[in-house]
């Protein structure tokens, strides 16, 4: 006969003991930096000098800071340029590689490769390709179009960075769509086909509604990532943020303002708070739009 197991009475704080490691990590690396940033945003703290409470002065200053508006404009444009592409293109790609035909695994892996590649390496390769004397410009010159200032024109630079973001993100969102597509019942497609629906009609009337919630998820994830873009623009436009800083994004501005020995930590914190508020607002907006559509 097995020995009976004696169960002790659960102590009231036992759940907290289990949660403590996670809470500690979250407290130290999420909660504390967040609270610290919030507090700093109301001070004139510098990297090496303690700050004084300055009320809303930092927030007032950023309203009159041209570079803040440039950053906000570019981050917003980034969302407008990148999000539609990252919602639609990976879905089409997923439909393409969903079929089980010989060699398809190679294509799936190939499309996913940019996701795992280092952004620095990817950025540098694109800089070489798009350089005034790079491969792309040499080809354009050969076909008679002439050289294009991908890396010297303010708008082309931003577009080039967007293209890199889209190219790098395609594989990631494709995998998410592949998982969603696997759950779409085959019978729905067959029934639609029997009813005479062509491939486009089946895509719009069967596939899209079936993966709608995944599209919302992709839109939310990619819009937050796009608003917080840093690496692509930093690598392609340089630390100064493109010609005259016109390609600076909000996160680049935070980095440039708040780092280094003379960094304005207080002002950079105020900028970070704005980025946080806009990011949360974006998430809420996307989720709300989704809920409204559902109802």
């Amino acid at each position: 006969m097995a020995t009976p197991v004696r169960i002790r009475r659960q102590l009231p704080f036992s759940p907290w003991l289990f949660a403590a490691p996670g809470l500690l990590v979250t407290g130290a690396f999420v909660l504390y930096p967040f609270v610290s940033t919030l507090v700093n945003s109301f001070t004139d703290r510098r990297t090496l000098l303690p700050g004084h409470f300055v009320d809303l002065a930092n927030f007032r200053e950023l309203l009159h800071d041209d570079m803040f508006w440039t950053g906000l404009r570019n981050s917003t444009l980034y969302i407008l340029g990148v999000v539609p592409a990252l919602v639609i293109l990976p879905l089409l790609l997923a439909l393409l590689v969903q079929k089980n035909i010989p060699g398809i695994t190679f294509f799936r892996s190939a499309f996913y490769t940019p996701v795992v590649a280092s952004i620095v390496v990817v950025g540098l390769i694109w800089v070489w390709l798009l350089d005034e004397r790079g491969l792309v410009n040499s080809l354009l010159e050969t076909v008679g179009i002439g050289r294009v200032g991908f890396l010297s024109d303010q708008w082309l630079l931003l577009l080039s960075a967007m293209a890199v973001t889209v190219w790098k993100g395609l594989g990631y969102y494709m995998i998410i769509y592949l998982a969603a597509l696997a759950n779409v019942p085959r019978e729905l497609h067959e029934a639609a086909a029997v009813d005479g629906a062509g491939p486009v009609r089946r895509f719009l009337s069967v596939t899209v509604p079936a993966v709608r919630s995944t599209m919302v998820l992709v839109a939310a994830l990619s819009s937050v990532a796009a608003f917080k873009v840093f690496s692509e623009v930093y690598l392609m436009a340089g630390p100064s943020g493109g010609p005259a800083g016109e390609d600076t994004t909000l996160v680049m501005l935070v980095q440039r303002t708040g780092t280094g020995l003379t960094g304005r930590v207080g002002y950079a914190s105020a900028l970070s708070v704005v980025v946080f508020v806009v990011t949360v607002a974006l998430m809420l907006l996307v989720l709300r739009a989704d809920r409204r559509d559902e109802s």
Partner: protein
Amino acid sequence: MPISRRALAAAAVALVLPLSACGSGGDGGGSADASGKVEGDITFQTWNLRANFKSYFDGLIADFEKKYPGTHVKWIDQPAEGYPDKLSADAGGGTLPDVVNVSPDLVAPLARAGLALDLDKAAGKYKPEYLDGAWASHQVPGMSGTYAFPWYLNTGPLFYNKALFRKAGIDPDQPPKTYDELFADALQMARKSGGKVATLANVPTIEDFGRYGVTLMNKQGTAFAFNDTKGVALLTKYKELYDAKALDPQALTATPESSGKKFLTGAVAMNPGSALDLDNFKKNAPTLYRNIGITDQITSTGHVNMYVMGVMVNSRTKHTPAAVAFAHFVTDAQNQMSFAKKVAIFPSTAGSLNDPYFTKEDGTDETRVRIAAAKSLKGAVNYTPVLFSDQMKTALRNEVAKALQGKESPKQALDNAVNAANRLLQQG
């Protein structure tokens, strides 16, 4: 037992508040008196030197520890990229090493935060060992004192591509010597190459304004003043070059690395550099190396620009005598000279530049560049003001770019840059 929200909030505050004490700096630190016994463990931080000079520093440290028994030096090296950020993190966290490799613009904020030892007080007796200008390079306007030992100096010639000069109909043996000649040659190069070869790859920086003879700051060192007539004239000329593609179209976003690469590929005809670059040309661009021309930096003031490295002593070190002794040891005439023989740098110690190593020709290009640089260093100036921070550099660069693109007049752009720099200066 249910836990109330208030209790939860209290727990969160209890968790967060102690953490908020972090990063508020050190413990108030050590003593400024360097006269005691030289002993104890100290840390020495260099700036991207381990990869190429490990054996030199290992030997240097061993010599010091032998000279001062009871001392131990721990050497750490940081990569070039992000060095100011590393220093600020260490300074904020109270973990700044005892002896730190710095440049004048890095030492200024550290001195203002009280983290750099005043060497006029702690080590003033060593001052006569160094060139006057080099010793003064780590003084901060608005503060009395000197905050780092001068270490190595560097300057470099202007390299040019003789083949491109020849193709543009410019005599490759008569490179430009004045700004007027430079601008004329650059315009001719752009015209003859159909805009495909630029002569310059970078927009003017604060040191270019200084070399052109622009007054960078007022006499009291309390405000910037590079928006004078000369400053506007230089920027107007650069605008003309930019429009003619004599200044590379990608100059607005160029970095020293990217412009160096453009020079290697023949997209740009001139580029500043140092004796170190010759090796690079030899290995990576043999055709360019065969056509390389070397000329002096162009300056309207008669003084070329020099870069100064320094060695700072952390004011909060617990072993001030050892830290000061080691910083002096690293920068003394003998050790600077032996470092200079390993790499193309120049000692900041008085009389060292008269050593035959810096005066005697041996027929090689490397020696020719070294001798010319050493000669020009005797009257060289570090044009970058100590108080000109990274944020100010960005502000100037952006305004210069606006002027070159025609979005602002050169005068307006420089006025804006000066106002932005002065605003940052006042904010401390």
